[in-house]
């Protein structure tokens, strides 16, 4: 069993059942006794419990899920979804940014360019990956790879998983704002299909800097927001502790994204969240990627670009008054 800091509050009853099941399995393995039925019954109970709990998760619970320390990160999916991933490094200007990874890969027989933010699993990797907060060089590397994909007519897949872009002194010095802006401008007219998937945290400008695509998907328990819920609460109510309310107001969940008309498809996660069955989560995601990529590859480029422009052109709300 994982240590308790790896378990969210609402997961605790599930974890208890998990532990009971594991305990019985351990005992029967030692004694040779057959308690298959007991185990099955407990597993059914547990799955029903998970369904119950997950049917009632708040936007804030989803926020915690999206940041779950056991949640699969970009490279976990990459390993399962792609064959032959060959990482490519560097922005050709300043550095290689480990918070943004990318490279060529094959999705079954399809040659694709992959780009995504990478968080770190342990303390050391978190430091190395800067917690998934990319610097200007990360966004510039991503753009470089996307331009290569464009040259060779290969689709681009972007995985979004970042709390925010890096805003430390170095990032501001090297123009983090300009890097994000430039990426969106170039992606708007990139002459090849682009599929974006928010797999965990879709954090503000840090996310949108690689998220202007023909299709924007969200994993079921990921979030996508203009600002972290805590930040919203701090600005709106001067009370960062009201993040729960902020998450609700902003509709940060995948259903929220669908409801607001900004997300094309929500990719189902295994019962209890992607971290309970990484392999199944990856297979679901792969199926979705294949479907969207294959659809997009059929679309002539001018039509693709026109549709992409109109898609983002149409986002945001306003009304037109008669005057």
């Amino acid at each position, binding site marked *: 069993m994982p240590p308790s800091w790896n378990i969210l509050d609402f997961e605790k009853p599930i974890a208890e059942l998990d532990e009971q099941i594991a305990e019985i399995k351990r005992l029967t393995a030692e004694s040779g006794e057959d308690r298959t039925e007991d185990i099955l019954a407990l597993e059914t109970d547990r799955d029903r419990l998970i369904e119950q709990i997950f049917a009632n998760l708040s936007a804030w619970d989803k926020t915690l899920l999206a940041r779950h320390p056991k949640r699969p990160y970009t490279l976990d999916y990459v390993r399962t979804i792609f064959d032959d991933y060959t990482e490519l490094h560097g922005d050709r200007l300043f550095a290689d940014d480990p918070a943004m990874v990318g490279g060529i890969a094959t999705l079954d027989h399809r040659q694709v360019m992959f780009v995504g933010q990478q968080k770190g699993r342990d303390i050391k990797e978190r430091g190395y990956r800067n917690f998934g907060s990319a610097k200007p060089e990360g966004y510039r590397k991503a753009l470089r790879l996307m331009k290569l994909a464009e040259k060779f007519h290969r689709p681009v897949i972007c995985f979004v998983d970042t709390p925010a*872009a890096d*805003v*430390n*002194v170095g*990032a*501001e*010095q*090297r*123009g*983090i*704002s*300009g890097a*994000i*802006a*430039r990426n*969106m*401008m*170039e992606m*708007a*007219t990139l002459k090849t299909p682009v599929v974006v998937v928010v797999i965990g945290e879709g954090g*503000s*400008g840090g996310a*949108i*800097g690689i*998220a*202007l695509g023909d299709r924007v998907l969200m994993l079921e328990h990921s979030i*996508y*927001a*203009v*600002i972290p819920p805590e*930040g*919203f609460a*701090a*600005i*709106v109510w001067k009370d960062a502790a009201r993040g729960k309310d902020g998450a609700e*107001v*902003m*509709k*940060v969940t995948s259903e*929220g*994204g669908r409801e*607001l008309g*900004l997300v094309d498809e929500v990719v189902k996660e295994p019962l209890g969240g992607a971290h309970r069955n990484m392999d199944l989560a990856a297979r679901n995601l792969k199926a979705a990627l294949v479907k969207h990529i294959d659809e997009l590859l059929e679309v002539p480029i001018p039509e693709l670009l026109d549709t*992409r*422009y109109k898609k*983002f*052109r149409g*986002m*945001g*709300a*306003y*009304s*037109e*008054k*008669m*005057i």
Partner: protein
Amino acid sequence: MTPAPWFGRRAKAARKTARQSVDALPDGLWTKCPQCSEILFNKELLKNMRVCNKCGYHYILGAAERIESIVDDGAFEEMDANLATVNVLEFDEYEPKLAKWRAKTGMEEAIITGVGEIDGRSVVLGVLDFHFWAGTMGGVVGERVVRAMEFAIQNDMPVIMFIASGGIRVTEGLPGLMQMAKTSAACAKLHEAGIPYIVVLTDNSLAGVLASYGSLGDFTISEPGLLTGLTADRVAKQAQVVNVPDNFRRAEFALQNGHIDRIVPRKDLKPTLIKLLAFCREQEDNEDAA
């Protein structure tokens, strides 16, 4: 340049729009400069384009005053004034806030877009007003910016965007964030069409507006001393940024790090814009311009 046909009815309506939102100075005859503490007579300050004549501190300028300071003798016609704000998240505190900013400024939203004349050239202008909800970009600002750019493409006019913004209006949520993508996509169309695009950064030029159409100009000029960067001040402090240079996220910092072309004092802004516009486009029949 021959005036475009749509440009006939400009003068009065435009002036009315522009005047609506002139930001009032504090009551009384004088103001204390927040940088050098000099006592400045309001009349003098207005004459000096709200720049402290002792230390050069640039007060934040409202959109209407900004437009007046840039266009030829009031030659400005607002466009898309009929676009109205929508509470896209259905957040019950949104509309009271909106009402408050409207009452405070007399403006409907944080940006004015339209066509103005500068040295006889027709130019599409977009001017954010920091006094309206910190110049935040939501659905109306995004749509006005994009329509202005599309208008510029259709009419082959240069675009000048004045930035004065704390970023995206967070109470518009993810649709607000998408204004970054939307306006950046429109910038791609501008560049494809070969339209000149000049960005003028003014205090504050921050976050989602800087990180979208505010960073995508052919030319980027900046007023002195302003604050510019990806985060609002507050957030940067929370993040406990270390080893901060003295001029961190000031105009001079951005210049030194290669992100802006020039720092231009307010009084030189119009002459500089005229030079840049002249570089971008011939002006063969200048004498025909209105």
